[in-house]
Every structure is written in structure tokens, then in C-alpha cells.
């Protein structure tokens, strides 16, 4: 568990052999092995759909945080079919020590984007966070030692002791979330908050789980956690300091309906309905 990857090859587009345990799930999902990135200690995935306004600040914060850490790390922005200039943004970022990769995902939905990001990763730990930085990156201070100590799935939570919600969600979202939460709690018992967009996993575990995922929308969190617990792995929750950010690209009715349908389908598949 303590392989030192701090001397991992820098990813400069030069050919290198991806480890088989990373390429296997990618190939199974139809992803060419050349898209699998070089290994590192920690990889942070940031799915982005038209986030050119909010992403620069987030990236600069995450880069400056990761540059000050002793371990090797990388950031992967997954462009989820943006029409704005997300691609251009990444190519102009000043980041000498922490590589910022860019990956496309034409399939719409956060689930599809995160899945693509996990399946192309060969990092020891891989996780994802929101482009709006609703959960501060400093949460990693708490999460990484837990992973290194043997926890294989650590997720941020707004509903455990110690969490603070700096700015609450708008009311309509709270209402819309009630049904969702009730169902999610039945599907993944023991996890108080499935939807906080900050989750870090053991790389091999995430790759294995991701290759089984089907949900493309935001309800994929529920499916991912359910799959992980079915694999016999416990999910640890850590309290986060969460602040609701405006400018979300989530659209109330359409995405909400899709999320509800996804979670109903999940519940049905597991025999809860």
C-alpha cells in the first residue's frame, strides 16, 4: 500500500507503458489505452460543462494547494461537451509542477464525465470535486491521511457532526431533494449525504467500480457508493465546510426529473420498489 509514486514519470505526451490494472477497465469500456494517464499519488477530477467563468479560480486554488504538498498529483478537467472555451483555458494555465490534463466527454452528464475520468486514471488515489469549489480543497488535509491509513472510500458530507453549511441551498432545491434523499438513503444505508461533490477513492477500487456504472446524470453518486459497498468496502464520511455556489449548470426541472428517474431505476434494480 505504500508504493512511492512521487517519482512517477511526468506526463509530457511521451509514450510510457500504462500499468495493466489501469488499462484493463479502460479497454473494457472501449477507451483506447493511449488515453490512460501516467500514474501519480493523487488525481483530482473536475467535470466541467460550460464552466469557463468559475473554473479558473477553482483551478488556481487547487493548483496552489497541490503544489505545496509533498506527494505527486495531477488535475484532470473533463470537458463535458462545453461550447465555451474550457479547452483554451486549460492550455493557458501556468502550472509547472502539477500537470493539468484535459479530457473530453461527449456523453452529457456528470456521471458519464466522472466515469470517463476514473477509467483513464492510473493514480493510486483518485477523486472528484465540483468546478465551483463548493467544498474547499483543504478537505484533502483530512481525507488523504485516512486513505493512506487504509480507508478505501472517503466522501465529503454535509450531514455529519462537524460539517458546516456556510450558505444554504436555495429552497426549491431542498424541496426537490427530499424524494431523492429518501430513496438514496435506502439504496446506500449508512451514508448520510450521497450528493456532496467531493469524493476520493483508492484508485483500483474506483476503476473496478466505475466499469460497472450505468447512470450518466448526477444520481451516479448513489450508484457509485452502492457499487462500492456491494464490493464489501466501507464508505467513510468526513465533515465538510460547504457553501452553495450560484451559477450552477444544473437545470431544475429537466435534470431533476432525470436524476429522480435514475434513482428510481436504481431502487427498482435493487428490489426496493
Amino acid at each position: 500500500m505504500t508504493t512511492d509514486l512521487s517519482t512517477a514519470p511526468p506526463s509530457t505526451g511521451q509514450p510510457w507503458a500504462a500499468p495493466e490494472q489501469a488499462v484493463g477497465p479502460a479497454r473494457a469500456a472501449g477507451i483506447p489505452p493511449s488515453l490512460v494517464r501516467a500514474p501519480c499519488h493523487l488525481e483530482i477530477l473536475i467535470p466541467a460543462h460550460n464552466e469557463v467563468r468559475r473554473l479558473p479560480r477553482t483551478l488556481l486554488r487547487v493548483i496552489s494547494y497541490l503544489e505545496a504538498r509533498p506527494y505527486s498529483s495531477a488535475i484532470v478537467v473533463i470537458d463535458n461537451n462545453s461550447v465555451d472555451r474550457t479547452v483554451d483555458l486549460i492550455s493557458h494555465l501556468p502550472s509547472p509542477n502539477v500537470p493539468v490534463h484535459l479530457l473530453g466527454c461527449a456523453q452529457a452528464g456528470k456521471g458519464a464525465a466522472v466515469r470517463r475520468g476514473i477509467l483513464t486514471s492510473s493514480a493510486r488515489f483518485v477523486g472528484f470535486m465540483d468546478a465551483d469549489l463548493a467544498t474547499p480543497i483543504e478537505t484533502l488535509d483530512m481525507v488523504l491521511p485516512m486513505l493512506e491509513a487504509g480507508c478505501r472510500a472517503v466522501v465529503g458530507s454535509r450531514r455529519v457532526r462537524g460539517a458546516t453549511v456556510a450558505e444554504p441551498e436555495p429552497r426549491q432545491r431542498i424541496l426537490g431533494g427530499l424524494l431523492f434523499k429518501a430513496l438514496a438513503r435506502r439504496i446506500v444505508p449508512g451514508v448520510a449525504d450521497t450528493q456532496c461533490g467531493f469524493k476520493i477513492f483508492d484508485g483500483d477500487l474506483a476503476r473496478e467500480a466505475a466499469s460497472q456504472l450505468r447512470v450518466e446524470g448526477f444520481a451516479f453518486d448513489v450508484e457509485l457508493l452502492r457499487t462500492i459497498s456491494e464490493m464489501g468496502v466501507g464508505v467513510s464520511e468526513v465533515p465538510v465546510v460547504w457553501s452553495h455556489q450560484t451559477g450552477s449548470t444544473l437545470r431544475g426541472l429537466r435534470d431533476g426529473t432525470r436524476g429522480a428517474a435514475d434513482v428510481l431505476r436504481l431502487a427498482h434494480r435493487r428490489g426496493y420498489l
Partner: protein
Amino acid sequence: MTALEQLAGRRILFLNWRDQANPHAGGAEAYTEQIARRFAGAGAQVTLVTSAFAESRPYDWAHEYLVVREGGRLGVYLAAARHLRRYARQYDGIVDCQNGIPFFAPFWAPSASAVVCVVHHVHQRQFGMYFRWPLSQVGRMLEGRVTRAVYRDAPFVAVSPSTRAEMRHQLGLRLPIHVVPNGVEPLPPSQVPRATRPRIAVVTRLVPHKRLHLLVQAVPALLERWPDLRVDIAGTGPARARLMAAVRDRGLEHNVFLPGRVSEQGKSDLLSRAWLTVAPSLAEGWGLTVLEANTCGTPTVAFDVPGLRDSVLDGRTGWLVPSGSSLVTTLTNALDLLSDPARRQLVAGRAKSWACRFTWDSSAERLARVLVQEMTRRDRGTPSRRQAIDLATVASWPPEDAPAVQASLGSGLRMTDAFSAGEDGPRVLLTGCDEVGAAAALQRAGAPAAKLTLATSTQVLCGTGEDELA
């Protein structure tokens, strides 16, 4: 075989509300004219249906294609509808150019022929400036909601990535949108050498939304540093009187000149002598003045706004003023850099090679590809993709793979994918797919494994996988 060659013998209808002979013709008319002429030159039978103007002839063969003029500013939409009802079946392809309101060709000519809708600029915000409620609201609905309903499976063409983004955000279009930019006609060559003292030149129509008063306002601050700065703002238009007053009020008569209308040669001389041109507009569909200056080797300072952020490569062919920053700061930095003659020469070279990328020949070919692809799709009866993908992927190979790539890609690619063979190896720009989609397409074509990267908006604009200017 190029797409233009495939248009030979085909009957193509262009719809545009004005034609190039119209005294009010602008950039959109140049686009239609240049492309229609090249379609006709390639052997297509081209007809342009457009509006009449004072003393215009109802039919015109002055160009290499037939121009049919009927109806006025709004009547042309009815005339075009009548024309489509009557003759749509005689056309193989229709290029429907919208100027705020499209001609709704798929509605008047259902199932008859392939329709491609060209959008220069999104007008949602302008309807309020030119029409009062409820007409402004009707305009917005026609451009947005009604367009979405009528053009259910027709491909769209945007003139720049910025316009494409506005079509997605403001019009809510979900259909595939291809990018086919404007070309730029080279100005007559100028023998005038670049000035040794700082000079700024702008040649444009002087209308309020070009915001040239911002340039005049910046001059006093610039004079502190460059007392011998000279600014020429050429062209005529409704904003000229106010600009002259602004110059007088600030006592800038010895530094800022407004020579009025200049000839093409005069334009070329002014721009060739200048260190810089400035485009302070709030938004453009496409910065034509920027590219014209670039043909003379003159870089641009512009705001980081839609359209201009496509035509100016920040730090290479000009400088963009970041939002929230002042024009003076960017102008000062730019003039500082350009005060080094070697630097001026370097930037001039880049600006020229950037402008060279935009020719009407390549625009006509790119529009022809979209049209031919749509005609083929309709002939085969395959449904169009329901969800459009705005990502594009560049596949590149080492030079030694070139023969294998060329052999495999002969027929395996879609019409709109662009192949180029540079010194650093062959490249293909595959539009409308991410890396995984591109890998699958290339594998089907039998191409060797490629390095895959997402295309930048500059690559999408130029329609090639080549790198941006170094």
C-alpha cells in the same frame, strides 16, 4: 475530390435578405456573395433570392449566378416563402442565411431538399433596440423558439466559435453547429514602411457600438508616455461628429486625426504604417477590421469579448483587454513591446500568416462540405444526431506514419473531418466527437493508433488540426 467539385451540376438556392449590390450590403452579404460565386464557379447552378431595393432589377445575371429580387425588408420573407412553395423541389440544397430572422426553409419546403442555416450573429439582445414590444418579443421568438421547432434536423453553420456559443446559450439550439468563418480579401499592397514613431490606425464604419470614443479617451494618458503618438480613425458614419467633438474637447487635434472615407489603397497605407489597430467594440460576430489590419502585418488591441476573442490570438497577433481591466493599460503594454523594431517585425509576420488562414476559397469549401454531407444524409434517409457534440478532437501521428494514415483515411472519414499533412506529421481534425469517439472512428477507418487531444477553439475556427501560431 473536394466538396466543391461534388457540387457540380447541383442546383443550390441561397436565401439572404440583401445582396451585394444593395447599398446597405454588409458583412453577411459579402459572405453570401463570395461563397455563392465559388459554388457557381465549381459548376453548381446557383440562385440567390433576396430583397429588392430602389431601382434594382427583379432579375440579375451580373454575377455568375441568378439573383432574384422581390419584396422589401420584411416582404422578402414572404417572397422567399412563395418561391420555396413553388420551386423548392427543383433545388438539391438550400443555404438559408439568417439575419436575425431565418427564412424557415424547412417549413416552406418540407422534405424537398437539404437545408443548411447560416448564422452570423445572434440578435436576441438587439431586437429590443430596433423594435418596441410586442414586435421585439415576436422577433426573439422567431429567432429562438420558432427556429428550434422548424429546423428540427437541419445542420447550422456559425461564423465563429463565439457565435456558436451564443446560439447554444441564447437560442437554445441543440442541433449540430459547424463553424465556417469569413474569408478576408487581401488589401492592395502598400509600399509605405512601418512608422518609426508610435502610430495607431483604425479604419471602420464609425457607428456607436464600435465605441471608438474609448480610444479617444485613452489618448491623453498615452501621450504622457509617447508625446509623439499619432492616432488615425478613418471611415465615415453617424458617430464621426461626436468623435470629432471629443477630440476637440480634449485638445487632441495634433495627435488624433479623422480623415473620413479612405480608398482601399489609403486604407492599406494607413494600416501598414501603423504599429497597432484598436477594436474597442462590445461584441462582433467576427472582427473583419482586425483581419484586414493583420493582412498588412498590423496587430490589434481589442476587448476580450465574443467575436474578437476569436479573431485576435492574445499575445501573438494582438492583445486582449481582460474584462475589468482598462484599455490604457493594455495599449501601454502593447506600445511598449512594439517600440522594439525587431518585435514589430515578429508580430507583423505572425499577423500576416494568421490572416492568410482565412480565405474565401477555404470558407466556400467548408460550407460545401456541410451542404454535401447533408445532401448525402438526406439521400440515404439516415436520421440526424439527436444530441449535438461541440467538442472536436485532433488526431496526430509521427511523420513516418503518413503513408499509412493517408491510405486508410481515403474514404473512412466524414466529409467535415479535415486532413492536413504538415512537417511534424499528419493530422486530422474530427469535429463533433471526443477522444474516445475519435479513436473509434479512426479504428473503423483502419488508421494506426494516434495521439488524441481535444481541439482548441482556434483549431475549430481554422478547421484544421494544425497548431496555433508559434
